[in-house]
């Protein structure tokens, strides 16, 4: 097993919905990984903040500032020894107090050595 931390930082004034937003229409923060060469056993998001904005009657479950998403990987027995790349995607949708930007996908890549 190995642990990978994806460090993220948002510009001041912006937030993204957490991985579990309260409203079904809100787009959650979501990190996904390819199925090989390693297996992502657990993806741990930080504890969200509950914040109120001009446009929300109720507080929203969000991340802002700097935070980390931690993935625990396992190498299956079938994993070939040597250098390998793990590809992932991070989906997010950001707003500030007055407006929202479209949802985006970012490619994420981790270089690993399997022995």
């Amino acid at each position: 097993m190995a642990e990978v931390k994806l460090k993220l930082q948002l510009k001041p004034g912006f937030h993204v919905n957490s991985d579990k937003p309260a409203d079904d229409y809100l787009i959650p923060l979501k990190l996904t990984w390819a199925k090989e060469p390693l297996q992502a056993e657990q993806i741990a998001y930080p504890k969200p903040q509950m914040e109120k904005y001009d446009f929300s009657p109720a507080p929203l479950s969000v991340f802002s500032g700097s935070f980390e998403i931690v993935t625990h990987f396992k190498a299956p027995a079938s994993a070939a020894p040597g250098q390998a790349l793990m590809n992932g995607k991070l989906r997010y949708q950001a707003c500030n107090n007055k407006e929202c930007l479209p949802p985006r996908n970012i490619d994420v890549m981790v270089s690993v050595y399997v022995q």
Partner: protein
Amino acid sequence: MSKRSLVGWSFAALAGVLVWTACSYAPTTAKAAVKPVKDRKIAPDFALKDVNGQSVHLSDYKGKVVLLDFWATWCGPCKVEIPWFMEFEQQLKDRGFAVLGVSMDEDGWSTVKPYVQQLKINYRIVLGNEQVGDLYGAVDSLPTTFLIDRQGKIASVHIGLSQGKEDFRNDIVQLLDAAHTGMRHPAGGALAFFTGAK
């Protein structure tokens, strides 16, 4: 079953510390004034589909004042303004006003239709796309709302949650009233004037 161990982790250039740049973004929630007639540009025409699959063109609304609202179901600030627009549609439609909502939801009608029904939106909604967004100056932030005069020209643009409902209403009424204060020359060169009629 042998287990593999993982050694020598490192992040490639795209991972590690990610900084959301939104680098072209600049906060623009200042009040949008109605432009003088001479400064208004033609609102680009488009053909988009409504929930019944019918093609809707902006040119269908020629002669009306149109509030063209780019929005999405995932946009919280948009949800604040929609009830305002519903009120305007109901109160001002008989004066030649119409609201047209352009949803920028990538998931399409499967997401938008239940949302429209839930909020009981009383004005026409069409599904937008990147091309229409580009026609209107690369619409990125939502909500982005255009007020279009009876001649099909863009009179104002509101980006982000507006200061308040009455800002919109005042601009709309100004454009509705403008039609009553002058008329273009009809063929033959005669002039006709209407003053202050409401």
